[in-house]
């Protein structure tokens, strides 16, 4: 069945068939029995990029383009390792990174398929240069 962003929300109760864990387990199979049997571990307990994209679609048709963009970035970042997330965040803080370093982080993000987020980092780098928010190095 296809996804209807206007009527399928909340996915968890209306369209659980569209939601799986990162390992492909259907939402309905995330049960206490499965946890007891050791079939589900904590790495399974998170939204996938695909689910976050569905949520972005819901936000967009609900008339919330910025929230949708944020969820699109989140969908990309779902595939990015924790340490990289935290490193990019630190680099985006004022005066932490040079423009060149920010560009390197953007490239790293692209390597993980996070193109939108990479563009967002590049946009930040341009503004930081103009506003004196880059590190001097």
């Amino acid at each position, binding site marked *: 069945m296809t996804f209807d962003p206007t009527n399928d*929300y*909340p*996915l*968890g*109760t209306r369209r*659980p068939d569209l*939601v799986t*864990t990162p390992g492909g387990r259907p*939402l309905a199979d*995330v*049960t*206490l029995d499965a*946890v*007891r049997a050791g079939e*589900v*571990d*904590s790495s*399974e*307990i*998170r*939204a996938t990029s695909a*689910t*976050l994209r569905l*949520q972005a679609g819901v*936000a967009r048709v*609900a*008339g*919330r*383009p*910025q*929230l*949708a*963009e*944020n*969820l699109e*970035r*989140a*969908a990309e*970042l*779902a595939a*990015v390792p*924790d340490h990289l*997330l*935290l490193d*990019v*965040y630190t680099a*985006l*803080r*004022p*005066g932490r990174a040079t423009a060149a370093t920010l560009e390197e982080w953007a490239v790293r993000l692209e390597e993980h398929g996070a193109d939108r*987020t990479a563009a*967002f*980092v590049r*946009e*930040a780098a341009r*503004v*930081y240069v*103009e*506003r004196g*928010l880059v590190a001097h190095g």
Partner: protein
Amino acid sequence: MGSERFASRARRELALEQLVSPFAELGLVAANGPSDPAPELVVEDGVVTRMDGRDAADFDVIDRFVVAHGLDLDVASAAMALDDLDLARRLVDIDVPRAELVRLSRGLTPAKLARAVGLLDPVELMLALKKLRARRAPGNQAHVTNLKESPALLAADAAEAARRGFAELETTVGVARYAPLNAIALLVGSQTGRPGVMTQCAVEERRNLELAIRGLVTYAETLSVYGTEPVFVDGDDTPWSKSFLGAAYASRGVKVRFTSGTGSEALMGHAQGMSMLYLEARCLAVVRAAGSQGVQNGSISCVALVLSIPGGTRTILGENVLAAWLDLEVASGNDAIASHSEIRKTAKLMGQFLPGTDFVTSGYSVMPRHDNTFGGGNFDADDLDEWLTIQRDWQVDAGIEPVPEEEVLRVRERAARAVQAVFAELGLPPVADVEVVAATTGYDARGMPDRDRAADVEAADGLLARGISGLDVALALDRRGFPEVAEAVLGMQRQRVAADYLQTSAVIDADGVVHSAVNDPNVYEGPGTGYRLEGERWELLQSLPQVVSPAELVGDLSEGAPVVEELGIAEAHDDPAEVVVAVGPAFADTIRRTIAGLDHREVLDAICDGVREAGGTPRLVRVRRVADVAFIAHDGSRLSGSGIALGLQSKGTAVIHRSDLEPLDNLELFGMSPLYTLESYRAMGRNAAGYALGKRVGPVPTQLDNFARAKLIVRTTLLHARETQAIVPGAEPVELALVGASVAQ
């Protein structure tokens, strides 16, 4: 020489607060500041070249972010062209729907937004907020902390908060390393109290993200933004870094709400001469542009600063309206202490309480203020009955439910036991039975046994190192006999997979269904529409534990042996020393005691004794046709040989009357029946005889209790109703004799 009244006021709690005159240079001006830019947006070839008094080249980091992500240029030209007053009127016009206002907001600059909201008066702001709230039903958030970081007490308080209807619970740490333990206590407690309640642990971002990744928390509201570039940078962030962090949280399944609030820029010394409302409009424009679903705003920790200047309270309500207008979920402050004065604090609260916001407070202290480690506790455990009563008074749902004491004790104990079990199963330092008992019934952490804090933090570090997650917590609960809590904790893990709560204004009900602005939006279009407190919910919110039924309150008042007997129709007499004691229709019959609890027989004896002491002759009659004390007394006076009567209602109110006076006139009125003793009634008897015998009579001294009415008006009403029910229309007064006494002399 000074006025003693001024001196008395100077000793009130309000006098502890500093009020200052506006000082625009430092940003100490609430709204419409003299240096606020005029609203302005110039677009050339699809590019914004000027906004709110600045050329593109001079745009700071905030302007640039808003221009890049926060303005819909297709809407802007028409929206910016609207007259300020026209725009302001649309905010309160019930025929302009919320969706249209949100659409317009997408094309408005911060200065234009602030200008329009600045035109609304407090009641208009409330209407606008009621109309613009994102989710249909209002809600509330609780703070759950304690000074000893006791896990049993955290869990018990979390359970009580959840059971009382709070949709989100926030904790924090005194010692940062405690974070995973506090997060677990909150998770277990919340899901014991009511499945679906969301939790957060406010700690440094890296730690916070780690807790989120492990499924120990579900939301965060620590992402602060500011309205000027220097303050933003002093806060060690930019709009881009905060926006990135928001996406990072969302990628790990965390609901994110940014935080802003008036006064922070002035406090941090870089308000750039702008008004608080304008700077907050800039903050909120950034929040929406960053893609946050919502914001915690309403001055938050700077509230006392904003309240020091004229119009501060109004401006805080204005910033809540701005946030809602921008289609953001609003957690509307009221958490930090706003004032020393209970009156002033409550007056400020009404701005959010009456219209209702997504979270009326961004942290109601469910425990006593002493244990609130946020430095909050504007409203706390001791204020709960007041909050519930004010909801009942206004017929307003401000997100807290009354719960009977035995049920509160039950969930508190269950939660403390559950966290005890989880600590045992996960090999954490044990939670003793005495801790469970103290957490269930105690007042605050001072009553909690001390724990080995070194062992706790060490265990907390180990917990992270071992990668303990929400699933481990669910399993531990399952193994130790808490299946329903285990299911609820697992339910929260399932929510993370579906991520529905990332949409605007999301809360989760007890069945695991997410309610957000997407599937449960606020559609208020005037009377008869939108969220209204009625039906079952209104029944629940009016049924406070201390409410009694009126019938129960007065009880059966006609118990016991007869006090008087009726001897037949009373005739007029001519004994000049006679004082008629005229009682009401229910006296000593279906009512047997005064409101002060005096036995009617003893009251009659006291009055008669008083009459005799002063040389008069008492005579008892019952007036049956009326219940009003003036008419009872006046009817009696017309039967009295002296023309003097003492009229007495069953609740104890008395009047001395004379037959030649108008019924509503009198010689003396004794209206403070709750305060009278038998000695008072004896004195009334003496005075009545004094009038009868033509002596000089000084009025009976009476006391005044200004609160008697507030305290007793319900009982007064019920007693009077019973008196009224005993009326026999048109009936003549009857002669009475005390049972067991020799017939009236």
